[in-house]
C-alpha cells in the first residue's frame, strides 16, 4: 500500500501523545523483581517451606546453587529488558552466562562428588514429575509480568528476548521450588529442575514470535493513524 509519506507524517504528529520513556533495563528488572518475589514468597508460604530450610541455609553448596539460580533469573531479566531497547549492545546477552555457569558448575561438581562417594548409585535417576508443574506454578506470575513488560519494548529479537524472559521466570521458579521441595541430589536437580528451566526457556523462545512481533505493534500504530 502506498500513501504519501508527508501525509503519513502529519497523521502521526496528529495522533502523537506524551509518552514516558522506558526506564533503563536494570531499573525495569528491579521493578519486575519487586512484583515477582512477593508472589514467590507467597507460594512458598502457602505450600509451606521445607522443614530443614534453616539447616540448609548453612550448607554452602545449597546456598551457592540458590544464589546462582536467583542471579541467573536477575541477570536474564536484565538482559531480556536490554534486548527490547534499540541500540543496546549485544554484550548484555551474555549477562546470565556467569551465574548460569556457576549454577551448572556447582551441580556438576555435586554429581562428581556423589559419584566418588556412592559410585554409580550416586547418579541414579528417579522420576520427579513434581518439578515441572511446581516451577511453572512458582514462575507463573514472574512470567506474566515479564511478558507484559517486554511487550512495551521493541521486538528486535523475539526469540532471544523471550528465551531470556523465560529463563528469568523459570530461574526464579526453581529458586522458589527449592525452598519447599526437599530434593537436593545434584543429578536430580540438574535433570529435573534445571532441565525444566531449560525446557521452559525453549518454549518461551518458540512463543516469542507470537508474543513479540512488529506486525501487531505496527498494525496498531497504522490503525490509530487511519481510524482514530
Amino acid at each position, binding site marked *: 500500500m*502506498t500513501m504519501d509519506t508527508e501525509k503519513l507524517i502529519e497523521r502521526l504528529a496528529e495522533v502523537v501523545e506524551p509518552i514516558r*520513556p522506558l526506564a533503563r533495563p536494570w531499573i525495569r528488572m528491579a521493578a519486575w523483581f519487586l512484583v515477582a518475589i512477593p508472589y514467590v514468597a507467597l507460594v512458598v508460604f502457602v505450600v509451606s517451606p521445607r522443614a530443614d530450610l534453616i539447616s540448609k541455609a548453612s550448607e554452602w553448596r545449597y546456598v551457592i546453587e540458590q544464589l546462582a539460580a536467583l542471579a541467573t533469573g536477575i541477570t536474564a531479566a536484565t538482559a531480556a529488558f536490554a534486548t527490547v531497547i534499540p541500540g543496546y549492545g549485544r554484550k548484555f546477552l551474555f549477562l546470565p552466562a556467569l551465574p548460569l555457569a556457576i549454577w551448572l558448575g556447582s551441580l556438576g561438581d555435586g554429581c562428581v562428588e556423589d559419584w566418588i562417594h556412592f559410585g554409580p548409585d550416586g547418579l541414579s535417576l528417579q522420576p520427579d514429575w513434581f518439578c515441572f508443574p511446581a516451577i511453572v506454578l512458582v514462575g507463573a506470575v514472574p512470567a506474566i509480568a515479564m511478558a507484559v513488560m517486554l511487550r512495551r519494548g521493541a521486538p528486535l529479537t523475539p526469540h532471544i528476548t523471550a528465551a531470556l524472559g523465560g529463563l528469568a521466570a523459570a530461574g526464579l521458579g526453581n529458586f522458589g521450588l527449592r525452598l519447599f521441595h526437599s530434593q537436593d541430589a545434584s543429578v536430580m536437580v540438574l535433570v529435573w529442575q534445571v532441565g525444566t528451566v531449560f525446557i521452559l526457556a525453549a518454549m518461551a523462545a518458540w512463543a516469542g514470535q507470537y508474543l513479540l512481533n512488529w506486525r501487531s505493534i505496527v*498494525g496498531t500504530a497504522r490503525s490509530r493513524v*487511519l481510524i482514530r
Partner: protein
Amino acid sequence: MAMKGQLDDHALATLMRAAQGGNTQAYVLLLKEITPRLRQIVRAQRRFLKIADIEDLVQDVLLSVHAVRATYDPRRPFMPWLMAITRHRLADAARRHTRRAAHEVQVGNVPVTFSDEGTNIDGDQYRDPEALRQAIMALSPGQRDAIEMLKLREMSLKEAAAASGTSIGALKVSVHRAMTALGRALRKKS
C-alpha cells in the same frame, strides 16, 4: 557526522525528547528530518526495489519509530536507536518477502480477473491517508473492525475471529463488503 544542512545527533535527540513529551511540531520536524535519511539508507541497501516499494519500507520504519518511541532513552544518542530499528525492519521486510516468494506460484499475465468490480479495485494505491481514514470511518462498525483487524493490523482470519468472537465466514463477508465500499468511496473522491 551530520551532512551539511542536516541536524546533528544532539539536535535530533532534543527533538525526540520533545516528541516524547507530546510536542507535535518537534515530532513533525524530527520525522521530516529523518525521512530523507531513511530513504537514502533503504535505497542504498535495496537497490533493486521500485520507488513505491522503497517508500513503503520508509513508511514502515516511520510507523515502527512511532510505535516504539517510548524505548528511546533521552540520555542516549538518537541515531544508533534509529539505525537499530531501521536495520531490524529491513531484515524483517526481507524475511517477509522471502516467505511470500516461497508461497507464490508464477503464472502468465492474466488480462482480466472477474467482472465483479470488487475484484478489480486498484487497492494498492492510496495517496491520501485522510481520504482513506474518512472512508474507513464511514463503514459500518462491523466492517470497520474487519478492516482494522485484517488489513491494518494484518491479523490472520483465525486470530481476528478469536479476537472479535465472530466466525471466519462472517469476517470474510465483512471485509469483502468493506473493501468494495472503500474502493467505491475512494474512486468517488479521486
